[in-house]
C-alpha cells in the first residue's frame, strides 16, 4: 500500500508532466485565467517569439481590475491607459482564440468570481492566474495559485508551470461559528494567528466542522485570503456542497463526463494519517467578528478589542506598528468600536458574491446609511448583480443610500476611478489594508459584509452582535 497522502499531494501527483532529478517539476495546468493588468507583456512575449497559446480552450480571459463600475461605462473608458489595457486584452483574446467575457457581457466580473460561476473551476484541477487571489479557487479542492507575468507567458506557451512542491499545512476550525461570525472572520483570525509570512512555503488545507458548515461562497472567502497568510494556496476538500454548486454550471461536465468526474472527485480527500508539516487548530466558537486596525492583514483583532500599543510587540514589528498607527491615525488604547468611518466598500473577490450581498442587505433592510457617508456595493460579476436585483437586494442597498455599481475589482485596489482620498477612512470587505492600497493616504479596515453594512449605518466600526 502506498503512503497516505494529503489532498495537495494527490492533486500534485496527478499533474506532474515531467520531473527533473533535483525535484523541479513541470506541473500541468488545467485552467488558466487571464485579466488585463498582468497579461499584456506575456502576450507580447509570445508574439516576439512567434509562439501561440498551447491550450486556448483551457484559457479564459476577463477584464476586471481597470474597468469603471459606473453604469455609463458602456460609453467607453475615460482613462486612456486603462482603456489601452482593456483593448489589448480584447485583441489578445481574439488573436489567440481564448474564451473571453468582454466588459459588455453580463457574465463579466472579477476573474475569481467568474471562473467558479461559469463552471470553469472544478475539483482536483490545477488553476493559475496572474493574480495572487487565485487562491480563491482552492475552495473547490483545486490547487490554485497566483503567478507572475513571466509565468503567465510560460503557461500560455506550454500549459505547464515550473514548480517545486510546497509543504503541507493543516488549519482545522473545530466546532461551529457563533452568530454574527462569518467566513471572513475565520480567514482573518487564521492570519492573525500565523502572521502574513506564516504560510510561506506551504499549501494550506482548511478542514474541520466550521469549514464543512460553510457554503461554497464562504469557502471561497476563506481560501481567497490564504495568500495574505503567505501560503502558496489554500484548499478545502470537495463534498456534497461543492458538487451541488458545480452541477449544471455552463462549463461543468455533463452526462457520462459528470459521472466519470464524480467517481474521480470522490477520491479528493486527505488520507487518514497523512503527514502535515504544520498544524494549526482553532475552535470555531472562539472566533469573534473581527476587524483590522493596521496596514497588514495580520493586524487583526476582535471588534470589542482596543488599538494595540507598539510596545506590545517584538522585533521589527514594534517599528512597523508605530508606522501603521501613524498612517492609520489611531491611538493605542482607543476602542475599535469607537473608530469613525467615512466610506464603506462592499465587494471584491473576497466578498463580492451573492451570499455576501444577502448578508449586507439583511443588516440594511429598512435602514439608512449615516449622513455624509459614502457607501458603494460593487457586485463581483454581472450575474451576481442581476441575481441581487431579482432578489430585491439591490433595492435595499439603494433605499439605504448605497451606490449600486457594475461588476469589477473597483476600490479593492483602486486602479479604476473608485479611490480613497488621503486620510479617508474606509470599512472594506476586501482583502488588503496596505498603505495606499485603496488610494494614496487612504485608511482601510477589513471586515465582513455584515459588519461593513452596520458601519455604514452607525458611521463607526460596529460590533454586529450588538447591532439591531
Amino acid at each position: 500500500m502506498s503512503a497516505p497522502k494529503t489532498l495537495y499531494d494527490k492533486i500534485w501527483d496527478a499533474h506532474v508532466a515531467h520531473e527533473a532529478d533535483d525535484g523541479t517539476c513541470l506541473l500541468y495546468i488545467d485552467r488558466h485565467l487571464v485579466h488585463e493588468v498582468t497579461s499584456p507583456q506575456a502576450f507580447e512575449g509570445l508574439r516576439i517569439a512567434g509562439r501561440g497559446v498551447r491550450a486556448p480552450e483551457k484559457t479564459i480571459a476577463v477584464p476586471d481590475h481597470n474597468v469603471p463600475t459606473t453604469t455609463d461605462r458602456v460609453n467607453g473608458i475615460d482613462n486612456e491607459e486603462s482603456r489601452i489595457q482593456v483593448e489589448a486584452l480584447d485583441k489578445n483574446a481574439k488573436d489567440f482564440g481564448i474564451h473571453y467575457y468582454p466588459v459588455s457581457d453580463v457574465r463579466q466580473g472579477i476573474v475569481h468570481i467568474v471562473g467558479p460561476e461559469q463552471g470553469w473551476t472544478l475539483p482536483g484541477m490545477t488553476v493559475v492566474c496572474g493574480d495572487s487571489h487565485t487562491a480563491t479557487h482552492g475552495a473547490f479542492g483545486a490547487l490554485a495559485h497566483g503567478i507572475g507575468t513571466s509565468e503567465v507567458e510560460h503557461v500560455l506557451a506550454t500549459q505547464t508551470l515550473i514548480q517545486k512542491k510546497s509543504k503541507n499545512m493543516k488549519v482545522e476550525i473545530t466546532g461551529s461559528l457563533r452568530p454574527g461570525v462569518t467566513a471572513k472572520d475565520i480567514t482573518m483570525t487564521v492570519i492573525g494567528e500565523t502572521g502574513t509570512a506564516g504560510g510561506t512555503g506551504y499549501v494550506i488545507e482548511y478542514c474541520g466542522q466550521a469549514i464543512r458548515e460553510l457554503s461554497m461562497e464562504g469557502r471561497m472567502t476563506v481560501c481567497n485570503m490564504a495568500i495574505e497568510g503567505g501560503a502558496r494556496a489554500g484548499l478545502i476538500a470537495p463534498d456534497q456542497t461543492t458538487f451541488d454548486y458545480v452541477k449544471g454550471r455552463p462549463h461543468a461536465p455533463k452526462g457520462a463526463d459528470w459521472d466519470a468526474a464524480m467517481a474521480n472527485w470522490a477520491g479528493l480527500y486527505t488520507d487518514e494519517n497523512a503527514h502535515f508539516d504544520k498544524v494549526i487548530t482553532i475552535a470555531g466558537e472562539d472566533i469573534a467578528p473581527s476587524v483590522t486596525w493596521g496596514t497588514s492583514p495580520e493586524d487583526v483583532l476582535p471588534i470589542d478589542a482596543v488599538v494595540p500599543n507598539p510596545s506590545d510587540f517584538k522585533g521589527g514589528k514594534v517599528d512597523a506598528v508605530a508606522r501603521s498607527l501613524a498612517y492609520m491615525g489611531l491611538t493605542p488604547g482607543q476602542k475599535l468600536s469607537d473608530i469613525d468611518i467615512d466610506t464603506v466598500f462592499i465587494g471584491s473577490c473576497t466578498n463580492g458574491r451573492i451570499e455576501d450581498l444577502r448578508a449586507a442587505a439583511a443588516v440594511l433592510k429598512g435602514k439608512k446609511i449615516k449622513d455624509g457617508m459614502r457607501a458603494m456595493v460593487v457586485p463581483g460579476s454581472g450575474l451576481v448583480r442581476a441575481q441581487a436585483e431579482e432578489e430585491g437586494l439591490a433595492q435595499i442597498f439603494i433605499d439605504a443610500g448605497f451606490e449600486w455599481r457594475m461588476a469589477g475589482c473597483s476600490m479593492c485596489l483602486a486602479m479604476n476611478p473608485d479611490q480613497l482620498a488621503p486620510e479617508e477612512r474606509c470599512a472594506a470587505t476586501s482583502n488588503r489594508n496596505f498603505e495606499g492600497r485603496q488610494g494614496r493616504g487612504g485608511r482601510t479596515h477589513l471586515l465582513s459584509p455584515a459588519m461593513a453594512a452596520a458601519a455604514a449605518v452607525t458611521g463607526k466600526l460596529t460590533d454586529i452582535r450588538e447591532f439591531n
Partner: protein
Amino acid sequence: MEKFENVSGVGAPMPLINIDTDMIIPKQFLKTIKRSGLGANLFDEMRFDDNGNEIEDFVLNKPAYRKAEIIVAGDNFGCGSSREHAPWALRDFGIKVIVSTSFADIFYNNSFKNGILPIVLPKEQVDVLMEDAERGENARISVDLENQTISATDGTAFKFEVDSFKKHCLLNGLDDIGLTMQKVQSIDTFEEKYKKSAPWV
C-alpha cells in the same frame, strides 16, 4: 535575460518588515503594457511627496544609496500581489540583489525571472549586513552567486542557499520557456494520457 554577474557595492537598508508590492510599485503604474521604465516609480509613495518632489530621508533618495544595487530588507519582503511590475521596477532602478530573512513566494519566483537574486539569511546575519548597509559609502557588500556567498565589509562571508535550477538560469541568463520547450514531448505524452483519464478537463 542578462547573465547575473557578481555584485559589490553599498546596500540600501530598508529594515521595515512586510514591505509589500503595493509599496514597491503602487497600482497606478500597473496600467502599462510594457515591462520597461518602471524604475522611475519604484517605491513611489515612499520616495516622492504629493507634488512629485523627492522625500529627502527616504533611503534611495540619500546620496549614498541613489545607485544602490543591493537592498537589505526587513522580514517578508515582497508580500501581497503577484504583480511582476515589482521586480521589473526594482531591476529597472538597478537593484540586483535583495537580502531578507524571508520573501513572499510569488515575489521570490518573479525575481529570478528578471535577473534579481533574492537571498534568504538567518536574522543574525541579516542584522550584520543591515548594520553594514547603514554605514553607506563606508561599507561594501559583495555577492558571489557561483559560490553562494555574501560578504560584509570586514570580509565576514555568509553562505546562502539557492535552488540549483534557478541558480543555473540566473548565471546563464536562460529563458524558462525555451528550456521547457525542450521537454515538449513529456507534455505531449502527459496530455494524451490525461485526456483519457480525465476527459471532462
